[in-house]
């Protein structure tokens, strides 16, 4: 990875998913922030300029779909691409407009990594 480390926010209520994805993305040179539900994710967005959000769908307090709706309704966050993940069969998962990629769980790290690279490349293109 060249240039400054992109800021990635990982949102997941499942401890191991959150910790391991954060560990692996950090290992690849990303600056990783974490949150355990949608509400906590909105706080991180307020605090830090996030480049990409990776969020789980099913979470307590505020789920991933609601988080996306909140982001879409806020001009500061509506253009932040979101990678959506879910252990639910993908046809049953809502698709908010800001979703750039969707992955069923268990995630394959190489897929996440390649999606991140493509999304960030697209975001940086004129």
């Amino acid at each position: 990875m060249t240039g400054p480390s992109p800021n990635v926010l990982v949102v997941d209520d499942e401890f191991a998913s959150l910790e391991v994805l954060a560990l692996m993305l950090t290992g690849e040179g990303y600056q990783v922030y974490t949150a355990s539900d949608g509400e906590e994710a909105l706080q991180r967005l307020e605090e830090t300029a996030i480049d990409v959000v990776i969020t789980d769908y099913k979470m307590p307090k505020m789920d991933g779909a609601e988080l996306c709706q909140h982001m879409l309704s806020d001009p500061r966050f509506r253009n932040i691409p979101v990678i959506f993940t879910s252990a639910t069969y993908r046809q049953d998962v809502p698709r908010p407009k800001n979703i750039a990629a969707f992955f069923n769980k268990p995630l394959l790290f190489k897929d996440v990594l390649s999606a991140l690279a493509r999304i960030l490349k697209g975001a940086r293109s004129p």
Partner: protein
Amino acid sequence: MTDIAQSHPDDAWLVERTKTGVLGLDTLLRGGLVRGAIYMVMGRPGTGKTTLGNQLCFEHVKRGGRAAYMTLLAESHAAMLKNLHTMSFFDSSLINNGLSYVGAYRALRDEKLRGLLDMVRRVILDEKATLLVIDGISPARALAENDVALKEFVVELQMLSAMTNCTTVLLANMTAADANDPEHTMVDGLIELSFEQFRRRTFRTIEVLKFRGTRHLLGRHELEIGENGVSIHPRLEDLLDGSERPAPASHRRLRTGVRELDSMLHGGVLGGTTSVALGFSGSGKTTLGLHFLHTGAEAGEAGLLFGFYESPERVLQSSERVGLKLPEHAARGLFSHVWQPSYEFGLDRLGARLLAEVERTNAKRVVIDSLDGFRQAAIDPSRTIRFITALLNELRTREITTFLIDETLKPSGPEMEMRIEGISALVENLFLLEYSMVGARMLRRISIVKQRASAHESTAREFFLTERGIEVAPDAISAAEVAAHSADQTAARTPEGV
């Protein structure tokens, strides 16, 4: 918004298996390890964990995967490889060429479980490993702050394995008695290697205690460590489970090779059936079995003698002495002899050996000399009848006509009985070979106790062991005389009034 809509294909929900290449293990697991899952192989020292762990790695690389073998506090890599290099799976050209050996204890000691997890991450990604074996998980346990921390570590390791699609195998020096530890509850599969003792003989066994997401063969199975590394011999009755498969019916008569006996059988035994020749030591059972194989070979039908007592050389010599041309048929591939002492093998190794040889030689006639070999090989004697049932069913399903030899403890009389209870119900044909002394003369007689679904002669006949093998008298007269004479002798010995 960029919509790259990238996703797993829907079949990502299906379980993808990785064949281990370890003989018998994939059968036990009904297909192999689940890709990206985490397993624990546990057992006391000497049960075969390290051999199995290394073998998994070598076989994985040979099948196109990439593997890493990570040690914590274990023997040095050099010492370990030195011990393995004589085994057939070992291939030094794969080391650092698809298979890496990594020491991770320092990362664990200096940075605790977080350091070890990061080391695992780096090894999997740097080596592009699709199989990781971590040998000696005990230090991680010892250096964990508490049970919760250890549980967290195992869950994270499980997640890491899943996300990288790298199957992880933990080797642990412990037994099922410790299986309530946190790491046991978190792994996807739990396999125990252990020792089992029977009559001063020690056997290695393997048991899959837990295997998420798929069925596996339950119970303990025999594990052998030899020049091919670890081989597993799943219990035959579980493995074949062939009771649902109907054995093909045959109306074809197979000659036994003893002319008058075939006449007593109204032409011979039916194809695909099982016969037992029951008799005391020296009564001619083995010779009868050799006739059966010889006459099949004469007709171009391959036969197998699966024996526990006489060596192949002695069998060939004996057969020549009675005019049976088994050496010639052996040279033409129509007679083969597998011989082994029963005490060196467990039942399932014997069963696997027999079926493999049947397959290799395309044998259509099999003689087992004798059932007592199986009885002696059984670690759990109560299993013997179930094992034999499964084996005979399998042979029937393969349209093989089988001839079993079973030795009695008495030479004649109503006390003659089989040494394994339940055998008579399993077989279609039962021949009784008896002998008794009439004055100074030894008289032998043969009778057909049963021939299922076929008429047969119901009287006994005298038979002789000659330079042409077994020769049965043309009628029942002489045997009747023997019986009458025996009855007279019994009456003479019985005190009056008893």
